């Protein structure tokens, strides 16, 4: 059996699978003020009377990290930043507890200026005096050489609760994002670890021996122990659960668009050959651009409960929500009311919906039906145009080789998957606008829990081999090691595969789920003067988001 639970902003969904058949499913309102209670309550309830020994996997997707950041319930973080030459500190400062320190590494990972031991001592003293318990240490190009970050951490260490190191967050280059990611990880570390503590206590109490996994923003999972060190990876797991749910429920293998129409917002995602697209660098949360691997989604302020206005001859939808639809006791007309008036759905109170839309029709000086249709059309148009823009942006992403420029794959979706309240009434029209056949997946109401339950463990490895310097770095591992001068691209690929496998097993992956993919494979001759002095080899490998092995069959209730 597999248990999947998604604690969302409004609802908590839970699904218990047995041989890939839905054995039980439930959906309850989330208690925002006590997420752990919501989570454990549902877990206890759904496992009631089940044979816990038969449970082989539990996956949670929670909003705990997202909420902490969005609501600003975060700890003070003392940041030590070694910025070296480049952007001025004024463009890098993230909070008042930021200190810029000596030490600089260049683009090839060579030390340019060393760490000032006394300076770090003073800064540590300052943070202690300020009562700061959580620190972040970030260096420019630390992914090319983690030495300074490690040295600074060791110099600071002692009585701090936690220190996050920048190079462990991601192998990608982007110093400001590395700073933001490190900051957020340290800022939510305490809150998240309290949450993990509760889950582990519960596990012990009920005598569960099943491994517990947590869903990440990239639609993959990692084991709960590992998540305690990298809480920031768990942000925005809600949209990821929804996308992975659609993938599980539809077995999508081609290019497709997925749209989740909610009350206030609509989320859009894109599949390329059945794989959900990732943000190239990382997700953005509350204005913080990060290096956190995450599924690419676009959220627009238009949903079933969006406020509808008529101004200057134009219908506008959203972006805000002003209570529920009029048909459900709200005060303002909404797209949902328009769909009720048009007879596209029979939910709610038709009379109240007609009354609300009627007000608008009067000021538009057109019949009720026409007004409802214009609201409906405008809602669909806005969502379709956002999806179209997203596709254009993906297909026009800059590339850096002639080969990709001329041969690069273009995404041409043929299917639109649509979930959410108004999915039924909107599917046909949205499909028409996007030139896709529209599909509403079965069991869409618990898609998020299904997505969490069946997502495989994901991870990545970034390798840089510099045979001139005879050094190889694996950023995510904080590993820098010597290599022979004749180290080749094949050797690098081999190391990458090995490391990726090792990492995947560490975070709890099952051997059969480690489906590797090489996402970057570059090799450059390094020439100094007029002769070859070495090779610069860059390999990035990942276990891409997807479903666990054996979940290939049809899901049945």
């Amino acid at each position, binding site marked *: 059996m597999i248990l999947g639970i998604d604690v969302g902003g409004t609802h908590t969904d839970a699904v218990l699978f047995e041989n890939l058949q839905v054995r039980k499913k439930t959906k309850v309102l989330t208690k925002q003020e006590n997420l752990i209670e919501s989570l454990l309550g549902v877990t206890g309830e759904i496992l009631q009377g089940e044979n816990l020994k038969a449970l082989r996997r539990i996956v949670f997707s929670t909003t705990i990290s997202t909420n902490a950041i969005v609501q600003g319930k975060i700890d003070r973080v003392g940041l030590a930043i070694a*910025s*070296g*030459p*480049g*952007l*001025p*500190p*004024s*463009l890098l400062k993230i909070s008042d507890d930021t200190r810029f320190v000596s030490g*600089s590494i*260049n*683009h*090839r990972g060579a030390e*340019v*200026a060393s760490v000032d031991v006394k300076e770090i001592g003073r800064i540590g003293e300052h943070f202690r005096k300020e009562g700061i318990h959580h620190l972040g240490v970030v260096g*420019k*190009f630390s992914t090319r050489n983690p030495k300074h970050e490690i040295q600074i951490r060791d110099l600071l260490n002692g009585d701090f609760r936690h220190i996050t190191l920048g190079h462990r967050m991601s192998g*990608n*280059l*982007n*110093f*400001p*994002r590395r700073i933001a990611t490190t900051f957020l990880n340290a800022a939510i570390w305490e809150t998240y670890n309290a949450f993990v503590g509760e889950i582990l206590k519960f596990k012990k109490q009920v005598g569960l021996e099943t491994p517990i996994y947590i869903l990440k923003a990239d639609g993959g999972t990692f084991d709960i122990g590992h998540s305690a060190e990298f809480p920031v990876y768990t942000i925005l797991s809600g949209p990821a659960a929804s996308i992975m749910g659609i993938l599980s429920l539809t077995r999508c293998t081609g290019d497709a668009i997925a749209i989740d129409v909610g009350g206030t917002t609509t989320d859009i995602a894109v599949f390329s050959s059945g794989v959900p697209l990732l943000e190239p*660098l990382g997700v953005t949360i509350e204005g913080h*651009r990060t290096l956190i691997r995450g599924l690419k989604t676009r959220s627009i302020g238009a949903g079933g409960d969006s406020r509808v206005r008529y101004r200057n001859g134009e219908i506008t939808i959203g972006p805000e929500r002003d209570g529920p639809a009029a048909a459900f006791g709200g005060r303002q007309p909404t797209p949902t009311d328009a769909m009720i008036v048009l007879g596209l759905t029979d939910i709610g109170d038709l009379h109240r919906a007609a009354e609300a839309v009627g007000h608008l029709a009067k000021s538009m000086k057109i019949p009720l039906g026409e007004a409802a249709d214009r609201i409906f059309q405008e809602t669909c148009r806005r969502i379709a145009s956002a999806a179209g823009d997203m596709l254009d942006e993906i297909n*026009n*992403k*800059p*590339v*850096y*080789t*002639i*080969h990709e*420029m*001329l041969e690069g794959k273009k995404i041409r979706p043929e299917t639109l998957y649509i979930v959410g309240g108004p999915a039924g009434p909107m599917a046909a029209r949205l499909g028409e606008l996007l030139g896709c056949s529209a599909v509403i997946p079965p069991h869409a109401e618990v898609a998020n829990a299904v997505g969490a339950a069946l997502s495989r463990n994901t991870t990545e490895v970034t390798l840089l081999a510099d045979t001139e310097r005879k050094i190889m770095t694996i950023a995510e591992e904080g590993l820098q090691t010597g290599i022979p001068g004749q180290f080749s691209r094949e050797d690098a690929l081999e190391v990458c595969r090995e490391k990726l496998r090792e990492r995947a097993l560490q975070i709890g992956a099952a051997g059969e789920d480690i489906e590797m993919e090489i996402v970057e494979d*570059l090799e*450059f*001759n*390094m*020439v100094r*003067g*007029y*002769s*070859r002095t070495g090779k*610069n080899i860059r390999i990035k490998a990942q276990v891409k988001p997807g479903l666990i092995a054996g979940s290939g069959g049809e899901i049945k209730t």
Partner: protein
Amino acid sequence: MRKKKTGLIFFPAFDWAISPTHPEREERLLYTQDQVFEEGLLDLENIIEFKPQVATPEDIHRVHICVPNVKSVITESHLISAGGAITAADKVLTGVVDNAFALVRPPGHHAMRVVHGARGFCNINIEAVMIENLRKKYGRKRIAVVDTDCHHGDGTQDIYWHDPNTLYISIHQDGRTLYPGTGFPEEFGGPNALGTTINVPLPPNTSDEGFLYVLDHLILPVLEEFKPDLVINSAGQDNHYSDPITNMRFSARGYATLNERLKPDIAVLEGGYSIEGALPYVNVGIILAMAGLDYSAVSEPDYDPEAMKQSKEITKYIEEVTSDIYMFWKKRESLKAELLGDARYAKRERDIHYDTDRIREQQQEIVRICDDCGGLITIDSVASTANHIFAVIVPSAACSACRAEGEKIFDSVDKAKHRMTHLYFQDRDRDIFIVK
């Protein structure tokens, strides 16, 4: 400093090289990419990256006579780097951004009007292809090209030698000490465009101080008087103190300062082969300066301003050269009568060397002296490839007399008699290109 919206077209062509160990190879912009990515410049809200377009043969025909044809003298990479420059211009001229930087390769400023092959690592002139494309789309513009590559941009000079509406200013290491060996103050433009070519040769070991002196005391005042609609910077980065094939002492911050004062609408990368020690820092400096952001923390790890100071003699020499050239510019109108008298045609005969492709060309160019347009041009060119061509070039905004004469010549020239392999008719006014 006012923040500006800056477009960046980055195309490092990671799969293209002239040859495996050539300076113009795959690795050239690798560390620049690393630095630009690590600085997170593309995340800044006022810096927007655009994918380059691919230039078309028609874009090339507007500028060059490629012998025997476009396909045989270029690769896809040239079309993309020229396309990158065109994209930069499009984004600026449609108001999407305030300015743009085409950080692309391969470069182009040694490519002349007639192209028998590659010279100075260049096959087609990407700035000229961009300029003629934007003139076609957005109207006849007065354009100034300020070439800050360490090598004289003899290709751009050749293409705009007779064009009074394109001002070409080059500052470079003295041609007596560096390829291509041209770019002296006496090279001052063709008879119909005197003064719209300006060359400022600088002695080896010129540092930031010298470059900025020429900028402040010559380039900016001349631009002020020329009043261009657009300023384009051919932003070669080989004046850097660490460049392996030149002898200057310019720094990353110097480049950024130059850019901040010049305020180009469009910058296009040209040369620059100190791929580790200079390019990553120079490019970050230029991008920040274009975007109106603080570049004071940009510095090469090994930069020592004291050691890079220029000598007093150099300072004095530069002051004199600058003042002489400025006087020349001031007198450009009266020079025409003085130099030409009542001649009706002017002839240039040159031996042109294609160092990259090892080709030699003998070229005779005749321009009709004209007060009403840039003047009809005919070119007779023989190359060591055994190609012998004749080209008739009708200038943009051509007067009726130049056009009529050009059409007549093209119709009457006897290909067989002169043993010519190809005849070309390039009408830059009507955007027509004919090969016989």
